[in-house]
């Protein structure tokens, strides 16, 4: 629970020596309560007071790391429930599932499929970050360890296992890759906690209900293990949704530290239906999954999902912008055709991506549109025939000899006005969507228009 300034004040030495930069201990305490100062900035605090306070002023949700090196992922550390309150910090990571119940060929095929989804969207790498290795019925510890090792060579893994011998064998094989050991529950938490601590890995803890999970977490904390992830997967979709929400809310809105850990949701256990799985993975991206496991992540599922995640985790305060300028594409020079769009990063990347794919040399002209999308900036008066023509006359005409300007289809209404304001230029209206540009430019080229 967060402490008030008065509660903190009671623990200070009350010297009013100003060494912390505050006029009085009381002023200092107020700042600490607001999060503006760290308790460690007072050099005279007693050891007990420090311990008591650092516990109480710690962030509401722990930040946990899994994997190593380039494959390390940071989970949790959130402070708010809604993105408009403050930027979400650590994005959801996705895991594909393999099971020792599959035969070797199937496992190898799946492990080969995982890296196939890997692409860039607005300077962010989009790929399946983890693999969940499920312990199937009748699996020997040796086989589990062997499959885990294969998987860990591809991605950081989650060991989903409740069998102690199998967990131990797998950890011996892969502990250096910093997997998650997801298998603790009310019945085995002591042995599993020891396994995880000895191996230096994060422990995943689950339960049949929210209350049981809470109880087990408290027992683990008593054992001194706070390197945890909460497996909120329950026996139905409804119960899992409830657990994901209630647990995150308890931590962030109600200050309950025992639930202040990242979560894992195994959508693959809730349904076999692929379409429903992709609905659920979107659902648990928005509602508080730190790791979400699906059976298979293919492109069709990934494309909307990673777009959603990128939107969700952007800073709500500042739009992503690119600098105004002339961007030559495909080796364009002063004689190449010109196209124009806005300085909103998303728009820029979508349009420039298509222009590159067309193979047609062209100059993409970006003027200042307030970092807004085409229609938004047009509706806000930031993209107009005046703004475009002014930019072209001041910054383009001296550098580019070509006099054909292609404008976005969504602002086709600007054509007439632009023709008046840009004498000597031929204004061409492009299709509505960037994806149509490849064909559009190729056709123009074939017709000798550019």
């Amino acid at each position: 629970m967060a402490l008030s300034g008065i509660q903190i004040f009671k623990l200070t030495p009350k010297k009013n020596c100003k060494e912390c930069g505050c006029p009085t201990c009381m002023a200092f305490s107020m700042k600490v309560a607001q999060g503006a100062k760290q308790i460690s900035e007072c050099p005279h605090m007693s050891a007990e007071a420090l311990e008591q306070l650092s516990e109480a002023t710690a962030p509401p949700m722990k930040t946990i790391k899994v994997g190593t090196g380039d494959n390390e992922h940071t989970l949790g550390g959130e402070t708010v429930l809604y993105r408009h309150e403050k930027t979400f910090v650590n994005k959801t990571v996705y895991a594909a599932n393999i099971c020792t119940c599959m035969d070797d060929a199937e496992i190898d095929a799946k492990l080969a499929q995982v890296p196939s989804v890997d692409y860039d969207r607005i300077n962010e790498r989009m790929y399946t970050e983890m693999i969940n290795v499920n312990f199937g019925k009748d699996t020997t510890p040796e086989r589990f360890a062997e499959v885990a090792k294969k998987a860990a060579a591809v991605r950081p893994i989650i060991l989903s296992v409740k069998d102690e011998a199998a967990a131990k064998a797998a950890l011996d094989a892969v502990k250096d890759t910093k997997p998650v050991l997801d298998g603790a529950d009310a019945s085995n938490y002591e042995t599993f906690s020891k396994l995880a601590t000895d191996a230096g890995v994060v422990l995943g803890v689950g339960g049949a209900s929210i209350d049981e999970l809470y109880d087990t977490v408290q027992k683990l904390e008593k054992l001194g293990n706070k390197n945890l992830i909460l497996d909120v997967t329950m026996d139905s979709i409804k119960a899992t949704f409830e657990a994901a929400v209630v647990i995150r809310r308890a931590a962030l809105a109600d200050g309950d530290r025992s639930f202040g850990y990242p979560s894992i949701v195994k959508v693959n256990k809730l349904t076999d239906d692929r379409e429903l799985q992709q609905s659920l993975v979107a659902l648990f991206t928005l509602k508080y999954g730190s790791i979400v496991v699906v059976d298979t992540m293919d492109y069709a599922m990934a494309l909307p999902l990673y777009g959603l995640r990128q939107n969700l985790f952007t800073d709500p305060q500042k739009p992503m912008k690119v600098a105004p300028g002339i961007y030559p594409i495909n080796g364009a020079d002063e004689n190449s055709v010109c196209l124009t769009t806005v300085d909103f990063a998303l728009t820029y990347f979508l349009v420039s991506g298509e222009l590159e794919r067309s193979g047609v040399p062209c100059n993409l002209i970006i003027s200042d549109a307030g970092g807004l999308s085409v229609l938004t900036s047009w509706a806000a008066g930031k993209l107009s025939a005046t703004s475009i023509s002014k930019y072209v006359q001041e910054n383009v005409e001296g550098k580019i000899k070509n006099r054909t300007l292609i404008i976005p289809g969504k602002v086709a209404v600007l054509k007439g006005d632009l023709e008046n304001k840009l004498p000597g230029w031929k204004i061409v209206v492009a299709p509505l969507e960037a994806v149509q540009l490849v064909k559009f430019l190729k056709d123009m080229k074939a017709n000798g228009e550019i």
Partner: protein
Amino acid sequence: MPFNRKAHKFNASINEVEIGTGDKAIKLGGENTFPFYSFDGSLGSGPKIGVEITDLGLDAEPEGVKAYYAGCNTIGEIAKKAAEMPGGDFVVLRLAGGDPNGANKSVDDLVAVAKEVADAIDTPLVVEGCKNVEKDADLLAKVAGALQGKNILVMSAKEENYKAIGAAAGLAYGQKVGAESAVDINLAKQLNVVMTQLGVPASSIVMNTGSAAVGYGFDYTISTFDRVRAAALGQDDKMLQMPIITPVASETWAVKESTAAEEDADEGWGPVEARGISMEVQTATACLVSGSDAVILKHPESVKTISRLIRELV
């Protein structure tokens, strides 16, 4: 210490708005909790799904949609089939052909289409305009009049044309009105305020607070939903307690992920239709869990999946 579960209850609820008539009439809204938070309170009648068809026929539709409507020759037959789509609750007719920069069909022709659709189905009907504010003002007012007594929802009343559409649909002909604003809580509220000042009862208004495909400015859509619901329930803001309806199909089936043919797409993307369904399913899910009381979809696979999601969570 056992888990001390704190209740998060509100003393306010979302209005319940009925559309359609008879046995098949449905209610939108009625909940007093955040989306799907059944553990906190009531979800009202639960989210609903609209099945979208347009006056432009099926030529431009994805294969799975064409296949579903195979054998339908008239808009009436298409509408009847849409009404039967498993998982759907109502039919949405989008009069896209009215667009002056597109097919530019006449208002009379489109009103006739709306009548044919309404006569062919007994499920509730929602009518969307062509996005051109002047044309919609005239078109939707006339549709509202022509379908008097059907208790339809007339969408697309915006800041620029709410007077014409609101007065006709909401006042003269007793229909329900969809108030459309641009992804901003203040604009949504403002439109509801002026609409009620015009005399349209708050209980006849459904909001469209803006939509986008995931990955395409959807961040603002989420935050608008979140903030609208927080104000409606947490602060009992009567001018934001209207249920929310979100057109999903018209956004998601236009973006690259859903339109680039396999041979034109980036390597590995696979068949286009699966990508389109994914866009539709995931965007609809994201809208519902953020605050929509109804989503408008078009692919039978998406309708099936989202109706299953709703059944699992309600």
